[in-house]
């Protein structure tokens, strides 16, 4: 039987979705009621749990896109292109959230919506531009060439992420709080625990959207096939 009747992906999506929802609720509860309030910044510090988790997932999505790009170039399986492009889309959406949450946090703790002296926030704007160009490239080519060029660009763009970060960082003195350094996490255990839960929940969100998007695209293709068959019959 054709893949259109395969319900396993849908069931997997249900499981991922439910687990993610439970994790998110736990994380929200833990962040607001479980974790201690920051002595210095107060309630606004709660945004840290989401801001950092979202940023990590955005980078994870771009990493997966680069890996899928390499796999596409090696195997030429359109599935890798599909996953790669979805990951870039998710990464882009999450990057926008990073910039928004970062801007809110900046307003609350530094008194201004935007600081050029913070290398991480500035890097995410560069990353936004980098990966927005990915979709401009995608829309200007078709078929196999579209997949191939997207794959090459996703590798090149991922190479520029650390370079951008480093160059912005050396160009500016920075005011961004450094939470993780070589000595480990710079926060109490009660905060770290809820941070980890939030981080896993965000990865769950990423996986849920990825599965949803894959199922939707497959349904779209199946629908097109049915339509073509109907048109041929008529």
């Amino acid at each position, binding site marked *: 039987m054709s893949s259109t009747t395969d319900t396993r992906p849908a069931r997997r999506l249900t499981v991922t979705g439910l687990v993610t929802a439970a994790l998110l609720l736990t994380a929200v509860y833990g962040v607001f009621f479980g974790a201690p309030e920051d002595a210095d910044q107060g309630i606004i510090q709660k945004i840290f749990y989401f801001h950092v988790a979202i940023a990590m997932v955005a980078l994870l999505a771009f990493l997966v896109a680069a890996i899928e790009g390499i796999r596409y170039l090696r195997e030429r399986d359109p599935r890798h292109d599909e996953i790669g492009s979805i990951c870039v889309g998710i990464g882009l959406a999450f990057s926008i959230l990073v910039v928004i949450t970062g801007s809110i946090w900046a307003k609350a703790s530094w008194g201004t919506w935007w600081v050029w002296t913070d290398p991480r926030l500035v890097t995410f704007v560069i990353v936004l531009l980098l990966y927005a160009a990915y979709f401009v490239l995608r829309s200007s080519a078709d078929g*196999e060439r579209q997949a191939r060029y997207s794959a090459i660009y996703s590798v090149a763009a991922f190479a520029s992420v650390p370079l951008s970060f480093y160059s912005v960082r050396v160009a500016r003195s920075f005011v961004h709080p450094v939470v993780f350094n070589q000595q480990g996490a710079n926060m109490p255990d009660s905060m770290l625990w809820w941070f980890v839960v939030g981080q896993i929940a965000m990865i769950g969100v990423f996986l849920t959207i990825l599965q949803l998007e894959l199922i939707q695209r497959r349904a779209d293709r199946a629908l097109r096939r049915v339509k073509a068959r109907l048109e041929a019959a008529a």
Partner: protein
Amino acid sequence: MRPVWSRQLRALLLKDLRLELRTRDTIVAMVLFSVVAMMIFQFAVGSSGDDLTDVAGGILWATLALTAVLGVGRSWVPEREQRVLDGILVAPIPRLVLLVSKVGAIYAYLLVVEIIAVPLAALFFIRHGQAGDLLLVAGVCLLANLGIAVLGSLLACLALFARARELLLPVLFLPSLLPVVIAAAGATHAVAGGTNDLAEYRGYLLFLGVYAVIFGLVAYATYDHVFDD
């Protein structure tokens, strides 16, 4: 007897340079553009006094980055016109040699522009500069050009067959080029901005080298797939 690839590289590179010397389309446009861009930046930045020493490095490298877009965009045009590319791809020339020849051509264009634009920027923007600083800035140019040329030649072939090619290239090219602009402007500022901070200069130069190596590796790993149809 030199190896085959070096003769192929020489032939391809000379073809590009000879074409450019005959028409002079690209170089003249790039030089004029760079001068106009510097004028625009001078008026846009503004200044209470006449001294732009502090922003000279930034103006120079913003100008050169935008000028590079012109050169990179033109670099594959000879191949596209009259289907020269088909001929080259059919010939037993490794793809890598083709890419390296383009890197060489773009590098040469940039160098010509810089020979005019850098002294001009020094004249326009730097007060109390020293001639020795120009040599240090030349070092920045030699290294920054490498990164620009490698990245540019790779991304330009992605844009080559795309719709709205002229629009696509700057959008693809400039965000990835930003680290070069930051580091090159920083290095230029370190020696010409009145501070003469050689440790900072060396740090930025190292970064430019690392940038060129990383994109060199990316290009090396992916160039084979660019002309795969």
